[in-house]
């Protein structure tokens, strides 16, 4: 009987169990109904401005801040430069004025 059984099983394995077209259509309909859609690129929210950007906006924006910075640097330069260099740069001479001529004794020793 073992040989008969092997033969029977082999023949049973070769018998196709074909799906009906209706079943295939139902399965495909399920597949398409539940298929995740290809995701479109989602626009990312604009990044929140940083502290410096917000501070800059407070003073009127980058152009105004740049002007202020330039003026500040120029003012510092004027303060540090010696009068000779200043004369060279401006093409003028500097007059020396003594407001307290009698006060030299304050700067001399003994």
């Amino acid at each position, binding site marked *: *009987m*073992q040989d*008969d*059984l092997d033969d*029977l*099983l*082999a*023949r*049973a*394995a070769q*018998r*196709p*169990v*074909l*799906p*009906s*077209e209706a*079943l*295939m*259509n*139902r*399965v*495909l309909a*399920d*597949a*398409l109904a*539940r*298929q*995740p*859609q*290809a*995701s479109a690129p989602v626009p990312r929210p604009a990044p929140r401005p940083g502290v410096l950007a917000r501070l800059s906006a407070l003073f009127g924006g980058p152009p105004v801040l740049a002007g202020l910075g330039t003026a500040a640097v120029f003012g510092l330069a004027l303060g540090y430069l010696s009068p000779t260099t200043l004369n060279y740069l401006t093409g003028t001479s500097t007059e020396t004025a003594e407001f307290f001529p009698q006060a030299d004794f304050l700067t001399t020793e003994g």
Partner: protein
Amino acid sequence: MAFDAHGDTSDEVLMVLYANGDRHAALALTQRVTPRVLAYAARLLGGDRAEAEDVAQETMLRLWRVAPQWRQGETRVTTWAYRVATNLCIDRQRSRGRRRQMALDDAPEVADGAVGAEARLQEAGRMAALEAALADLPDRQRQAVVLRHLEGMTNPEIAAIMEIGVEAVESLTARGKRALAGLLSGRKDELGYEDDRDAG
């Protein structure tokens, strides 16, 4: 529906493509997996075509649901599908109790039209008897025999589907075949195996 744009693509890659919205992948997976699950379910359910179709559709539905979380390399799609179909068949068998023996009229038609009507009837009777004998096996033995001898799977593949060891598969298959032989031996005359008896 016969067009398969992913002829060389593995089932596992198709799952990823399906999850990414590729409609051709949906079609390819439907065409590849559904017939196998249907055949397996029909054999486990003793040829009950309507129930087998329900099991096949439910199995495929679960496959579509799990696709977005599918992790390549963990398991094969067919292994997963057979496992789900097995559990669905067991649930159905338990819910309806032991299924009725398939009537001769329910036997699938023989595809070969060259054989005569008598031989076709005898062949259908043998297949019906085999289905009935398979149905009388314990669940695990039936699964192992069907997967090994009707689905043509290897023991490691069966072990993966049944989530047991290869040795356990071998044991289940051997015991299942012995039980099948015992069940069918009482019906040798009915099945047209009298020649064996005469020869023996």
